Structures are given as C-alpha cells and as structure tokens.
C-alpha cells in the first residue's frame, strides 16, 4: 500500500511538473489510437457466438456459403422484369467470390437462348409465380468482411438492372442481412456513445456542483474511449452487438475515475499549493481507485474465462478490460495536466499557502476531516452528506438486524433465480422490426425457410460415396423424419436418387457415374474435398428448447440408424452451434459470478494482506448478486448471455464504492478517540455523498443503453441501471454493519490469541 501511494504521488509530481509534456503524450496516443481504430472489424450474427472448433471449421471451408438473395415481387413473367432479372444475374456472375447465380432467367435462357419479348413464352418455362428469388451464392469459407462487398455489388446491380416500376425488389439473404446489421451496429454504437456523453454532461452539470471545470471528466473519458478503440483495433478484437454495449459502460466507469481524481485534487487545492496538491491528491485517491479498477477488470476477466471461448463474450470482456485500464490512464494523462495548467493560470494555491502559514502553531484544519470538522467542511458535506452520515451510523448501530434483512432478500433472490426467463436465440437479440430482418423473414417464407430452419450435418468417413453409405443415409432420413421437429432432410442419397430414377446404384462406380451427371454447383453442396453434407430441415419458429431437442434428435437418430463403421455424423454450422453455446453461457452464470467474486477477493487479499479488508468490500456485493434477481423478476427482464455476466461485473464495478467507503473508514478508525461508529459516520458523510454522485453519474451513462434498438442491449441497460443503484444502496447500508461485525469478530479473535499467549494485557474491547 505504501509503495502504491508513493507511486501515485510520484506520478502526480511528474504531471504537476510537466503538464504540457503529459498532454502532448496524451495527444500522441490519440494519434496512435486512430491508427488502431482503423483496423477494427465488425462481426455479426451467429458468427459472433460460435467458438472455433474443428468440425465447424471443416464445414465452413467446404460447404458454408453465404447468399445474397434478390426477392422479386410483382409481374415476374413480364418480359421487362425477366430481362432485368437476367441483367442482374449476368452482372452478379462476374463479381469476385460469387460461385453461382441461380435465377428463373437461367431457365428461360436455357429454353430459348435469349429472354423473349412474349410473356406467354416466359410463363411456359417458369409458370405464373407472383414472387421469385435470384440467389447469389458465394464461394465457401468467406469471412463476413469478404462477403459484405458482394452485398454492395448486389445493391448497385439492382439499380443498374432497372427493374420496371410496379415490381418490388428487395435484397436479402444471410450476407445482405449481415451487411445491414453491421451498419446498424456501427450506427447504434455511435448513437449510444453520443447519448451516453450527453447524459453524462447533464449528470455532471447538475450533480458535480461547486467544482471548477466540472465537465472536464467527460473530455478525459472520451479520450479513454478513443484509446480503447485503438487498442481493440491493434489487438484484433472485433466490434459486435455486445461490444457496442461496452462503450456506455466505459463512459460510466471511466467518468467515475476522473470524478474521484478531480474531486480529491480540488479538495487538496483548498489547503495546499498546486505543487503539493497533485501528488497529495493522487497519492491519496490513486491507490483505492486503482484497486477498484483492478477489481472491475477482474470481474470482466471472470466473464472472459467462463465464456468458453464464445467470441462475442470474450470480445466484450476484452474490450471492457482494455477500456477500464485506458480510461484510468486518460484520467491521469488528460484530466490532471489540464487541471494543473488551469490552477496555474488562475494562480490557485497561493492563497492556500498563505492561509496555511497564518494558521501555523494553531490547530491545523485538516482537509480530510477528522473528528473535528471546520465550518467550511460542514458546509461542504451539506445536508445530504450529514443525512448519509446519520443513516450509516444508524445501520451500523443495528448491524445484526440490517444484515439479516439483507440476507433474507438475498435468499429470496437466489430462489427467484430459477424462475427467470432466458433470451438465448441470437435472432431475438436484434430489433424485430429491423427492415433487414423483416426482409429476411419474408424471404424465408417465400423460399420455404431460410438458413435458420435448415441445419447442417457434416459427414466424415473413409467412403462416403459407397452405395452402403448412401443406403444408410436413406435409412437415417426415414428414422429422423419420423421424429418430432424434423421436417425433412436433403442427403447425398436423395441427390443420387433424383438423378438416377429414384434408385441408389448398386456399385461405387455406378454412384460416381450418376454424380458426374449432377451439375458441379449442385454437387458441391453435398460432396466437397472428401466430406459429405446433409441438410436437416427443422420446423419453423422453434424456440430455444425445441431447437436443442431438434439437434439432439438429429444426432441420436444418426446413431440409432447404425451408420457404417468409421462414419462420423455431427450437427454443425453456425445456427446449430451458436444456440447451445449461448445457452451454456446462461447456465454457467453462477460459475461466472463465483469466479468474479474469487478473483476480486484474491486481488484484495494480495493488496491489503488482511482477511478483514478483503472480505468486507465483497459482502455487500454478494448481497447485490441475490437482490438483482428480485429486480429482474420484478421487471420481467430475461437472463441474456450479456446479463449472465452481470454478477461478475457488478462485483467488480460495485467494489469501487465499497473499497472507497472502507478505506475512509479505516483512515478514521485509526485516529485517536474515534470509535467505530464515529468512523462509520464520518466515512458515510464524507465519501457517501461522493460515491452517490459518481454512482448516479454512472447510472446515467448506463441508462443510454436502455434506448438501444437491440433488445438484448436495452434489457442489459435496465439491468445495469438497477444493479448500480443496488450496489450503491448496499455500499451505504450493508457495508457499515459488515465492518462493525467483522471488527467485533476481529477483536474476539485477538482476545483469544492474547489469552492463548497468556499475556497480561486484557483483550481490546469493542469500542463501538
């Protein structure tokens, strides 16, 4: 602790002596961050929720093709419409990474060699559909970054093809959806950031009264956010739906660090010249704020570890960890030098030193309070501070009853935990009225299902073209389609039968001959590089539980139908892998929370080398873990994968309030003639107000999330706003009684030890 204080005091001394150099360093780092931010990539949809695994990688490389579909509604058989479809088809066929383009114009052209001017001739080939789809299929194994330009090309080709008026043309499909969603995520991140900054400005303006340059923390935290963008760009952490939630959180947290530094500096300036004020302020507040930042980082670390490699959660945790460190850094590099320069410009502190010298020899008014407070301090604490002081004294005087009530609520919360709903379908994370999503749903209706009802199974084995293997596929299809939820199946066997008059050839060479007759683009969907692919069609609109059952049925049916030796059949593809992964994240939430508590406990123990000080700040946070379930039940907020990490996060974030109150308590309780109850009251009145202000500011930052168009983020916003408010309540109401009880316990242990040692000294009596 002493080393930590010195380190921060030394940093303060440096910044104080070199404010311009420090600011130049901050500006230089903004430039560096700009370079990093340019390298950020965006990943959306299921891909963000699927961890890398060999089967999925093999599937992606061989069979996973994104598609951009053009949904045409209206007079499809009108010659001008068919000509436009043909123009679109031919232009898209030339685009890089496009494997094939399937359109009705292909069939018309195959029949006549051109697109005829007669509607009757066209209808003779394609019938009289009201809707048709032009499907642009990409090469397999493209990343989202690589497939997105195809969407751009499709949009241009749609304009260029000049569809007649009266025909509705919509671009949809997985690649198109991913591109549109990516744009929405970027817009939403920017909007949330802007909103959070706006709300913070309002909060600081009204709550951070009496402090000069009170909006400066916003500038500092904004620079911290720029640094974070740079860091994730350099580290290759992509931006995803969940990552965009980090920035309002960061602004909330980062503002807190800046506010604490700012407030303490102002306090020190009242009695010291700037030269001493900054090292004193940073030496005093730096250590508790840094341990609080470490705790918050560890809370996110727990999320990272328990994310089981699910990318979106890992990215969320990594971005948050970078963000905490960098907003802390920006508070030092941006806020402090500007405050120093401002103090110099105003000539602050000169009066302070005169006052100090005049009062020499008398009782020095100590800026940090103490038992006797000056009138100025009384005024500064204000009515709210005094109220908090009295409140903390009251709860500390009735420690057992207060903690019992907290415990009962905690147990109620644990009981309510099982009844909470869950949000695990990644399509429910996005706005349900998002035009791109509505288009995709319409496309699915028209085509009898989209990618989401078509699930993939990868077959590996020595001889996948053997007639015996094909016969097994048929048997498997019959077994599986008899089961609930499985609507149908497309296997290499169904392909071979389709091209062989409904029969499976008797010999391997017979199968090969049939496959040679199948067009390459169609065959590639079933056989590729020694692997085979089965499409299992599920019911539309399955809920999460049904989907999990469906996957289990598909896999167990494969085993039940006794596959040939050496053949391995596994459900894969992003939709089949993402949902189980998200469900497991939700089910593991207690582990995540437990890990968060453990990490923060170990960090506090290592820092304080005292069991009492490592346990005390965590007790209120553990209460909050239970209470938050009651809050969620009351507002019917379902547990999303993001909410599942909230327990660990709230421990990390809330620890800041409890650490700051506890540090102040121990400062006071060490003073002569100050009882524990006095210390609690002083801590409550002096820092209770400060943490309430910073807590309210944080709540404002988080509240930006409630306005997100993404339901998962909006729910998370409501959740975090409630949880931060609960951590504040817990820090003020349950920490004081915890400190009193742990203090008594510590006294009792000391007394026993003294008895054991047969010391003449009598046990220290609890002085509360």
């Amino acid at each position, binding site marked *: 602790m002493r080393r930590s204080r010195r380190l921060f005091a030394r940093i303060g001394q440096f910044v104080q002596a070199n404010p311009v150099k420090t600011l130049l360093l901050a500006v230089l780092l903004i430039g560096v961050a700009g370079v990093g931010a340019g390298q950020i990539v965006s990943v959306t949809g299921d891909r963000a929720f699927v961890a890398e695994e060999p089967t999925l990688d093999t599937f992606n490389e061989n069979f996973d093709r994104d598609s951009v579909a053009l949904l045409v509604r209206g007079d499809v058989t009108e010659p001008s419409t068919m000509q436009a479809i043909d123009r679109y088809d031919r232009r898209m066929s030339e685009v890089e990474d496009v494997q094939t383009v399937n359109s009705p114009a292909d069939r018309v052209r195959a029949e006549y060699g051109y697109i005829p001017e007669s509607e009757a001739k066209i209808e003779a080939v394609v019938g009289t559909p009201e809707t048709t789809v032009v499907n642009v299929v990409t090469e397999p194994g493209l990343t989202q970054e690589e497939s997105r330009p195809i969407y751009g090309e499709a949009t241009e080709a749609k304009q260029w093809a000049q569809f007649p008026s009266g025909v509705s043309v919509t671009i949809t499909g997985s690649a198109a959806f991913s591109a549109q969603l990516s744009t929405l995520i970027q817009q939403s991140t920017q909007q949330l950031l802007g909103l959070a900054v706006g709300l913070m400005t309002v909060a600081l303006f009204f709550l951070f009264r009496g402090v000069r340059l009170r909006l400066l923390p916003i500038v500092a935290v904004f620079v911290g956010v720029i640094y974070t963008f740079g860091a994730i760009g350099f580290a290759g952490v992509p931006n995803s739906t969940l990552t965009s939630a980090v920035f309002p959180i960061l602004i909330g947290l980062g503002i807190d660090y800046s506010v604490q530094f700012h407030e303490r500096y102002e306090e020190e300036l009242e009695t010291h010249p700037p030269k001493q004020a900054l090292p004193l302020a940073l030496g005093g507040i730096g250590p508790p704020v840094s341990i609080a930042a470490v705790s918050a980082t560890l809370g996110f670390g727990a999320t990272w570890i328990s994310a089981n490699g699910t990318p979106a959660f890992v990215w969320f945790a990594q971005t948050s960890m970078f963000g905490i460190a960098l907003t802390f850094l920006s508070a030092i590099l941006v806020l402090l030098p500007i405050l120093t320069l401002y103090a110099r410009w105003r000539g602050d502190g000169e009066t302070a030193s005169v006052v100090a010298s005049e009062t020499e*020899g008398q009782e020095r008014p100590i800026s940090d309070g103490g038992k006797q407070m000056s009138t100025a301090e009384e005024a500064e604490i204000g009515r709210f501070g005094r109220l908090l002081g009295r409140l903390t004294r009251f709860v500390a005087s009735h420690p057992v009853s207060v903690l019992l009530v907290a415990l009962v609520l905690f147990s109620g919360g644990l009981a309510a935990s099982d009844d909470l709903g869950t949000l695990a379908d990644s399509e429910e994370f996005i706005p349900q009225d998002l035009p791109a999503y509505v288009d995709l749903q319409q496309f699915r209706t028209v085509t009898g299902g989209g990618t989401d009802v078509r699930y993939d199974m990868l077959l590996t084995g020595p001889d996948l073209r053997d007639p015996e293997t094909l016969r097994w596929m048929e048997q498997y299809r019959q077994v599986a389609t008899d089961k609930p939820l499985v609507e149908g199946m497309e296997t290499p066997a169904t392909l071979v039968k389709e091209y062989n008059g409904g029969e499976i050839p008797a010999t391997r060479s017979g199968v090969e001959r049939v496959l040679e007759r199948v067009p390459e683009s169609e065959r590639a969907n079933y056989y590729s590089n020694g692997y085979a692919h089965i499409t299992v069609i599920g019911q539309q609109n399955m809920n999460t539980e049904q989907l999990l059952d469906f996957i289990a049925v598909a896999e167990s049916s494969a085993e039940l139908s006794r596959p040939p030796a050496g053949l391995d059949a596994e459900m894969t593809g992003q939709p089949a892998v993402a949902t189980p992964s998200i469900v497991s994240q939700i089910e593991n939430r207690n582990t995540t929370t437990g890990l968060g508590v453990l990490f923060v406990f170990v960090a506090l123990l290592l820092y304080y080398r005292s069991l009492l000080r490592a346990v005390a700040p965590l007790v209120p946070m553990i209460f909050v873990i239970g209470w938050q379930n009651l809050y969620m039940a009351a507002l019917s907020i379902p547990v999303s994968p993001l909410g599942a990490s909230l327990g660990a996060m709230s421990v990390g974030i809330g620890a800041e309030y409890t650490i700051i109150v506890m540090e102040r308590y*121990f400062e006071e309780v060490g003073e002569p003639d100050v009882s524990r109850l006095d210390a609690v009251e002083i801590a409550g009145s002096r820092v209770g107000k400060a943490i309430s202000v910073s807590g309210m500011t944080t709540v404002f930052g988080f509240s930006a999330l409630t306005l997100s168009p993404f339901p998962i983020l909006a729910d998370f916003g409501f959740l975090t706003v409630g949880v931060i408010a609960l951590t504040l309540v817990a820090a003020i109401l349950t920490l004081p009684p915890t400190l009193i009880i742990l203090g008594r316990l510590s006294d009792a242990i000391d007394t026993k030890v003294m008895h054991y040692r047969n010391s003449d000294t009598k046990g220290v009596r609890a002085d509360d």
Partner: protein
Amino acid sequence: MTEIDRVLVPFDGSTQSERAVEYVDSVFPAADVTLLTAIDPVDGFAGYEGGEGNWERQATRKAESLLAEQETVLNDDDRAVATVVEIGAPAETIQSAVTDHDIDHVVIGSHGRSGLQRILVGSVAESVTRAVSVPVTIVR
C-alpha cells in the same frame, strides 16, 4: 559579524538532524530557534515514510511529536522555540521558511536521504546552501 537572533533547524527525524539540534543548543545558546519539518508529498520524511490510515494526517502528527521531543532539548528561559510542519519539497520549503520567519542562520544535518535516493534527488543540504542568502552550517 552580524548577531544571530533566529536559527532555523530543518528536522527530518534522522540522526544527522538530531545532531544539528544538539549543535544549535551548544553553539547558539541565546538564539531563537525554529524547528521545521518538511513533509515531502512523495517520500514523507526520514522519520515517517507511510503507514496505515490518512497519510498526511499521520505524517503531520508524527512530525509534530518528533518536533515536540526536540523542543525539550532546546527549551530554556533564554530563547523562544517554534515548531513548524509544512507539506512540500524539503529544499524549497526550507528556502521559503528562511524568508517567512526572518531567519539569520540555517543549521542542517548533512543528509537525511540515503543511497539511491541521494544520487537521484541530490542532497537537500547542498540545495539549501545554494538557495538561501543566509549562512548555512552543515552538521555531520
């Protein structure tokens, strides 16, 4: 030679600073003495580097108690002894105290800092010697 009425003794709790107090007691028996402890915001002072609780308050209390002990060494009817505790870089604080308290002579221990700190930061006594316009006695 000008008469020496007021002597400043920077006191940081080190043995050298105690010797400086003893020196003043024997060499300037009639002069008024100001005992000054400068608490460095980073390093504290030789008698206090840090501990539990509020650092600044504790450092101030420790300095006051150390100065009170030294006061008893110097106290007799012929002179006035004042004690001052200031937060600030030692050399600068001593320099301002010389002006503020109208000091005629400074008596300072040779060094309170040791080892690496002395190499990095330099000697307070040396800085004071260069900075003040009154005679300085360095006691080893």
